[in-house]
Each structure stands twice: as structure tokens, then as C-alpha cells.
């Protein structure tokens, strides 16, 4: 496995100067502005395919990931920009990746749905990452490392049967894993009532997995909420599932939002960014905003200068990795 970047998210968070509030805001601002810039580049034709922004859900990423340590595994899904940035603090690499550049996180091969950076992974198939993450958690434990795993999934992903297989094994075998459910009440165009019968927390507890739920877009609240949960997984060596009730303020993937306009507008009052910004003093907030603006600008202009991905030779991985 790769050599690890130092320090891990928790250490980095603690070492960064400033109040906790400022730091959380800075991270969220970075995520938000990254995605807004990305969407602009999209409109300018620099991004091919599609992209899934997490606008409105940034507090989840910073609330959870800032408790993770060097070597802890994170597995994310299609909506991974926030998770990745909170974990890596590497907007340049992500910008280059989604812009299809050779210097992207995985050389442009994956796009943001399919990346790997140190112990951070993502994949674009709903559900399948959950057992994989359980295996990663178990491998860490088996190897005597102190690491744990965190996997992010959405409400819609509760449709996939393989996650229940994973819950069962995680519970039977005591995998140190935190299942973080970002319940934004929609799966693509489908409201949660049409996709999910019963209750997510009850589903987890029926596998003898401790589980809870919090309705919040408040980064500080989430940070506090997850601190003991992460510690609990680490100490007990047992799985835990936590549902965050949140809301996506943007489209599902680039430009496909048919949700009732009014519903979306109502949720704007819960936007995690103004919520936290209001608690900062204005000049601190402005400084952060400017600082973030510079980083985003730097990341994207760097990325846009990178050569397009176009490997000189396409080598068959079966041949390349053959014994």
C-alpha cells in the first residue's frame, strides 16, 4: 500500500490555527466554492459527462471526517467531492481529475466517482462499496492496525440488497466501521417515500448494529455528534450506523432537478454555510472567503493548465500485474 500523507484529517484539523468554528466554515466554504466553480467549468464545456455536487450537505463531510485519523479508510460514492476535500484538502488534484487531466487524483481515469487517494476511495455503483468497506475495516483490525472505516451512503442506496449482506457480516464479525447515511430525502428524482419502506435506523438495529439519527445541517452540531460515535467505533471495534437528515440544494447530477421548487426553496434556510457563517465575526469570515477564493482559483487554473489525460500506451492491467 501507498505511503501515507501526513497528517490525517483529525490531526490536520486540530493543528490548523483558528477556532473550530472558523475551521469548519473554511472547509465547507472550500467544498462549496469548489463545486460552484466546477459547475461553471461544466457550463463552459470543460467537464465531460456529468457531476454530482453535494451543495447543501457539506456539513456531513466536515462533521464526520475531521474525527478520522491517518490510515482510517473512507469509502465514498458518486457524491464525493465534499468527502474527498475534507479528507485530503487537495482541491488541485480533484479539479484536475474532473477536468480530465493527467495530473488528476487518478490520472483522469476515474473522474470524481472513481478515485483513490491514500486510504480514500470512491466508486459509482450504488451499494457495492458497502461490503468492500466492511472488508477494509476487517483487514485493518485483522492486521492489528488501529484504523477504522467510514462509508457514506444515501437513502436511495438502501434499495440495494448487498448493503444488508454487509450489515450482517459487519455485525457478526465486529467490523470497526461507521456507516454514515446522508438522507437527503431524494434518490435522483425519487422521493424517499417511493423508494424506502419502513425505517433506516430500524433496519440497522435489526442486524444488531447500534444506530441513530440526527436531523441537522449544522456543522458544529454534527462535529460534536460524531466525535463520540467515531470514538465508539474505534474503541468497541463494532459497527455503527448513523443517519443524517439533510437536503441537497442542487440538482442530482448536472442539471436534472425536477423536485418541487418550493420544497427546495424552503430548505435554503437550512443551508449549512450561512448558518455557520452567521456565528463568525464578519472580518474573520471575509478573510476565510478570500483565502478560499484564492485556493480555488489556484486549483482550477493549475488544473486547466495540466495536459489532458492521454496515456502514451494503454497497457492491459492483466498483463501489467501478471506474476
Amino acid at each position: 500500500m501507498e505511503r501515507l500523507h501526513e497528517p490525517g484529517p483529525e490531526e490536520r484539523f486540530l493543528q490548523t490555527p483558528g477556532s473550530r468554528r472558523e475551521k469548519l466554515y473554511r472547509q465547507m466554504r472550500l467544498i462549496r466554492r469548489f463545486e460552484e466553480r466546477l459547475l461553471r467549468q461544466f457550463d463552459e464545456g470543460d467537464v465531460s459527462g456529468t457531476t454530482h455536487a453535494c451543495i447543501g450537505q457539506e456539513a456531513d463531510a466536515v462533521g464526520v471526517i475531521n474525527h478520522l485519523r491517518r490510515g482510517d479508510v473512507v469509502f465514498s460514492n458518486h457524491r464525493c467531492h465534499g468527502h474527498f476535500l475534507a479528507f485530503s484538502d487537495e482541491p488541485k488534484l480533484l479539479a484536475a481529475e474532473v477536468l480530465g487531466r493527467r495530473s488528476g487524483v487518478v490520472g483522469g481515469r476515474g473522474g470524481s466517482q472513481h478515485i483513490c487517494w491514500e486510504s480514500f476511495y470512491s466508486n459509482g455503483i450504488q451499494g457495492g462499496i458497502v461490503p468492500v468497506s466492511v472488508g477494509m475495516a476487517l483487514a485493518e483490525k485483522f492486521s492489528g492496525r488501529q484504523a477504522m472505516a467510514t462509508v457514506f451512503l444515501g437513502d436511495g442506496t438502501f434499495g440495494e440488497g448487498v448493503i444488508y449482506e454487509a450489515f450482517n457480516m459487519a455485525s457478526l464479525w465486529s467490523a470497526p466501521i461507521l456507516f454514515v447515511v446522508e438522507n437527503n430525502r431524494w434518490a435522483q428524482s425519487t422521493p424517499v417515500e417511493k423508494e424506502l419502506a419502513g425505517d433506516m435506523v430500524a433496519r440497522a438495529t435489526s442486524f444488531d448494529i447500534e444506530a441513530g439519527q440526527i436531523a441537522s445541517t449544522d456543522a458544529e452540531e454534527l462535529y460534536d455528534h460524531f466525535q463520540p460515535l467515531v470514538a465508539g467505533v474505534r474503541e468497541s471495534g463494532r459497527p455503527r450506523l448513523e443517519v443524517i437528515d439533510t437536503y441537497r440544494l442542487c440538482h442530482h447530477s448536472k442539471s436534472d432537478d425536477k423536485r418541487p421548487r418550493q420544497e427546495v426553496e424552503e430548505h435554503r434556510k437550512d443551508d449549512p454555510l450561512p448558518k455557520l457563517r452567521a456565528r463568525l465575526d464578519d472580518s474573520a469570515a471575509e478573510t476565510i472567503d478570500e483565502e478560499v477564493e484564492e485556493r480555488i482559483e489556484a486549483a482550477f487554473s493549475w488544473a486547466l493548465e495540466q495536459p489532458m489525460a492521454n496515456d502514451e500506451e494503454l497497457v492491459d492491467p492483466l498483463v501489467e500485474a501478471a506474476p
Partner: protein
Amino acid sequence: MGTSVLKSLNDGLHQIMGDDERVVVMGEDLLDPYGGAFKVTRGLSTKYPGRVWTTPISEAGFVGVASGMAIRGLRPVVEIMFGDFLMLAADQLVNHAAKFRWMYGDKVDVPLVVRAPMGGRRGYGPTHSQTLEKHFLGVPGLAVVAIHPLVEPGELLRRAVLEDRRPLLFIENKKMYARSLRRAVNGQIGPMEVFSNDAVYPTMTLAFGGLVGGDVTIVAYGGMVEIAVAAAERLLIEDEIYAEVVVPTELQPFDVQPVADSVRRTGRLVTCEEASRAAGFGAEVSARVCDESFDALRAAPVRVAAHPVPIANAPTLEQKLLPDIEDVVSAVRMAIERPDSSIRAGVG
């Protein structure tokens, strides 16, 4: 601008649902106003509210549900949002739907249609761009049909849903949705004459100036058809090579006859598929052509296919690894340059 492939499919579904009340449509995000990821099902839930089932994200589960419905008399049409997700339903297709009829002593039919949009060239990356139908070829009991712009896709869908009693994979191509149908005008499509074998899922043969013999047979299906036709036109102009393009619609079971007939006229074969080469459709076509008209083959068949790597997200890389017109042109040149073994001396 003619009718698009998308419109043909959408119109087709509207009519099929109108004509037969047993038809139900099932898949992810199908309800209006969204109307499905690629809009093939747009309007259906408004017009036939009780018969469109938008599903949870449960590909195995809803393919299973649909196959149960099919056994009990309905005519379910399932949409797999991206064909890549078919792998989740593999057990349901291979070990359930495809087996039921024969293993139950021919007592049941499973008239299930599973639509799967395949293919890349849209920048969707490794898990949303694959051409996976090759892995479902050769499953006893499972039919595979792949549409293309030369035969009305909506009409093919109607046949699959209303006339076919077999579980059937209906392969679409994402890039093709926006393309116009290429209907024959006076028996011609562009500069080529077009012939159909008039099967339920017809095989089309395109040739310059009739079936009078040419230099090479190009077999292409689905998303590669347009590319093959463009390559044929270019080969004529640039190399004065006369290619016949044979376009099968039903991949499984596969009727090799139109291909074998063409090879008898041309002596050379190039197969095209968007998936990677190994163990793909081209291998089966080559083997079947050998079965039927080996003596007519003057050189080894050449297979055009993708590089054996996942479909990259970056457009430059994706373009490089998927087969394009240039690849077909080169393959044909290679097939033609291969020494003519029909005039060789004995071997061994």
C-alpha cells in the same frame, strides 16, 4: 431531421402500452416529470399511471419481480438505468428468468424484456459506460437484441414485448439515442443499397451497388453500426475498397447466414464491437463464419474492439480506448493486406 432513436423508442412504448394492458414498465426514476434517466419512458406514467412502477435502487430485485410478473401473465418491460448495472441482475437473468421455461418442462413462458442502455463516448466513466452484453451471450434461454438506426427501434421493442415469449435483453446505446433513424429511401441508405433478411429482428446488409461482391464484409451491431458505415464510405473514397456492412439485430440466438453469405461474396471479414475484444461477439461471429463459409475466407477475420481496460472518464482517454472509424478503417486495410490464403499451397 428525422425521428430520433429516442423518440422511436418512446413512441413505441406509448403504443405498446396502449395496445396491451398486460404491459407494465418498471425501473428507476421513471415517473414524470423526470421520465427516466434517458427519457425513453417519458410521458408513460402520466398516461398510464397504474402501470409504470418506479423502483427503489434494486436491480436484482426488480428484475426478479418482473420475471415473476412475466410468468404470471404480464408483459413487463424493465429499464436498467445504465446497462452497467445489469451485473447486479445477472443471477436473476441467468439462474432464474432464462432457465424457467426449459427447466420447468416448457410449462411456463417468461416474456420479460430488460432494456439496457450501454456504451461510452459520453464521459460517464468506468461504471457508466460499458458495453456488457457480451457477458450475457450464450446463456441458454436468454435472447439478446441490439437496436441500431437502420431498423425502427420502437417496432423492434414492440416485437420483443408483444410477440416474443422469451426473456430478452434489449440493448440500446446511449450515444445513439440522439441519432436520427436512417430509413432506406429507394432501397438506399446514403450511397449504399440496403437489404433485409426480413427476420423478426432483421439483419441488414448494406452494399455499394448491390450484392454483387465486394472486398470485405464488416459486421457491426448497436453503437458500432454508424461507425462501420462511416468507415465503409471512407474506405470507398480513400482506398477504393468496396465493403459490405452486415448489421445483425438479434445477437443471441445468432443467425450467421447473412454474414456467411456476404463473406462468400467478399472473402474477408472484419467484426466490430464497442466492448473489449476477448471472448466477445466478434469471436462468436468469426467462429460461426468459419463454421459456415470457411472455404470462402481468404484471410483471417479481424476484430475491432476496445482496449482491455475500464472506460476512462477523461474524454481524451475514453476516445483513445474505444474503437472508432479510424480503427475500423485500419482493420479493413489489415484484413485486405493479409496474404490471400486461398491461393496458398498446402500447409504442414
